[in-house]
């Protein structure tokens, strides 16, 4: 978060005066494990993109292109839902190395 | 300022009478107050309501303790309640009763003016039910001379017309009862 505002600088009643402000709230540092993507096992079903609660799966031209690690909390839902190819997952969770 | 106390039983219209009287007094340019004494609302229980009428704004919001007029809607109350409490010698007591006025004078310990009118009988004969409040209102206006009787009658007719739009016979009955009460009220 940026520097804390003084009371006179705040919007009325604690309103957040625009939409889509979740992008400013970086939740990536909550992560203790990170998703690792292996395109070879990916069938582009986009389940990971649908299920990700933080919209942290990046698509490029309709295909999975990696993860937004500023927002990914490392919950592992993407890896859990990934059907993979021939029972080998395209997303696996690995311990976060800081 | 004139202060009035109404005695009745729950359901007899003591509150409505005070409201109607205030409304009628307002119509002739007076300042008014009308308020009931509130408690558990039970049919038949003794209830009181009050009026203040003045030519200038009424500021006080305390109970009426020394009325100059007391109106008794139900004479059976007089056995259990001191209806003349706070009523001075110059005061006026108006009772709904069919009893002879002289007889009343004997049983009530009160030296001021006493008026009687058989409002229950009048209302039964005109409205078809024992609703003594409007005839007693008429008697009050008649004997105190506080308001012009005809304009009061006119105002009450308007109010009743609003309340009983779907039952015109009630309006006519009330007006008849008021006219008769004004004629029949007599001094003891």
């Amino acid at each position, binding site marked *: 978060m940026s520097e804390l505002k003084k009371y006179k600088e705040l919007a*009325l*009643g*604690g309103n957040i005066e625009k939409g889509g402000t979740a992008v400013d709230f970086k939740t990536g540092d909550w992560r203790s494990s990170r998703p690792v993507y292996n395109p070879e096992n990916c069938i582009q079903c986009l389940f990971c993109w649908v299920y990700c609660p933080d919209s942290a799966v990046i698509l490029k031209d309709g295909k999975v292109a990696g993860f937004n690690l500023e927002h990914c909390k490392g919950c592992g839902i993407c890896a859990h839902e990934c059907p993979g190819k021939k029972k080998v997952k395209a997303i696996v969770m690995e311990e976060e190395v800081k | 300022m004139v202060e009035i106390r109404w005695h009745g039983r729950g359901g007899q219209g003591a509150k409505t009478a005070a409201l109607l009287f*205030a*409304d009628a007094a307002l119509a002739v340019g007076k300042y008014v107050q009308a*308020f009931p004494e509130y408690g558990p609302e039970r049919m038949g229980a003794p209830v009181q309501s009050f009026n203040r009428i003045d030519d200038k704004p009424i500021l*006080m*919001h305390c109970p009426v*303790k020394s009325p100059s007029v007391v109106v008794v809607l139900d004479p059976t109350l007089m056995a259990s309640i001191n209806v003349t409490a706070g009523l001075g010698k110059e005061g006026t007591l108006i009772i709904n009763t069919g009893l002879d006025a002289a007889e009343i004078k004997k049983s009530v310990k009160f030296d001021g003016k006493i008026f009687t009118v058989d409002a229950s009988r009048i209302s039964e004969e005109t409205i078809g039910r024992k609703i003594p409040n409007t005839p007693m209102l008429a008697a009050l206006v008649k004997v105190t001379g506080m308001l012009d009787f005809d304009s009061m009658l006119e105002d009450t007719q308007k109010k009743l017309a609003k309340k009983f739009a779907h039952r015109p016979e009630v309006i006519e009955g009330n007006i008849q009862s008021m006219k008769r009460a004004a004629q029949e009220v007599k001094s003891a």
Partner: protein
Amino acid sequence: MQKIILAKTGNEAMALAMKQVNPDVVAAYPITPATEIVQIFSQYVADGEVKTEFVAVESEHSAMSACIGSCAAGARTMTGTSSQGLALMYEMIYIAAGLRLPIVMADVNRALSAPINIHCDHSDSMGCRDAGWVHIFSENAQEAYDSMIQAVRIAEHKDVRLPVMVTTDGFIISHGMERIDTLPDAEVQNFIGKYDPLMHLLDVKKPFTIGAINLTDYYFEHRRAMVDAQNNSLKVIKEVGAEFGKKFDTGYGLIEKYQLDDAEVAIVALGSTCGTAKVVIDQLRAKGVKAGLLKIRVFRPFPTEEIAKALENIKTVAVLDRSDSVGGFGGPVFTEIRSALYGSAKRPQIAGFVYGLGGREIDMEQIEGLFMDLKAGKVKADSVSYLGVRE
């Protein structure tokens, strides 16, 4: 402009003001203990006399919740309650203020249980005094009517944006019929003007979030901002009251002084008792007793400076509280006034009197007795007593 003279109970007067404001939404729980105000208003809705969406809810808590939602959605919103009903709203009362929603509410001041009681005292609304609402008391039905109309302007003013509560004394005013001078509908509409919600949730072009969490980092700042809004409202209430007076002949301020400027002994009171006190003061003045009254119309924001100034030349002051802060040193009015006077170089002797709880009558003899005790020096300074209780 011709005023319309009517005989109305306090409840009818407040409902009539609501009708003439013609709010977008009224959410209420229209049975006991809410008093008749919203019930009378719901009849206006049923008769098509207002364009209001009437939301009949299942409790007072829901009533204020629905008001919060509708006000956040951009609707001019009003409601009414009393006593236990206000108590049940308590949680949402703070939220309405904290979200800075200009809801206007009529409250009929009545005692809180237990024991069960239906009569007047100020415990219910005084219990909400720290929530952030503007809190206006009425001496009579006329003031209740006038203040309901002014409340809309005060609440919606851009420097205020706080909910406003207008109160009357239960039964004494709420169910007592009095003569009131009412305004034509069009005049009320002109006076309150059009509501500009600034932001509202139904504006899809400007999405925003309302009611977000504020923890240790921002909650304090938002409550601090409300203090400024309350302070701003002092000026706004006076401006709106003065404009009301200019247009309709009866002006309003934060306080009213009655025979106070040269008074030796004075009482401070709120609500209907002030009218009775004025009559007593007239009688005492005729006998040469220099008695006076300070009536507090606006309890929140508390007009600290005006009150300290109004009382600085009085010898002895009795503060009448129609509610008690049980376990505290005196009722809320006494506490506030004593605190307001502490910073004054010149200040009167002051004593607190809690009276009229649960509708206990206060009559002219009691008020006169109090004045005479003050004059005779029989009232102990800095003491709190109970007037009219069997001790």
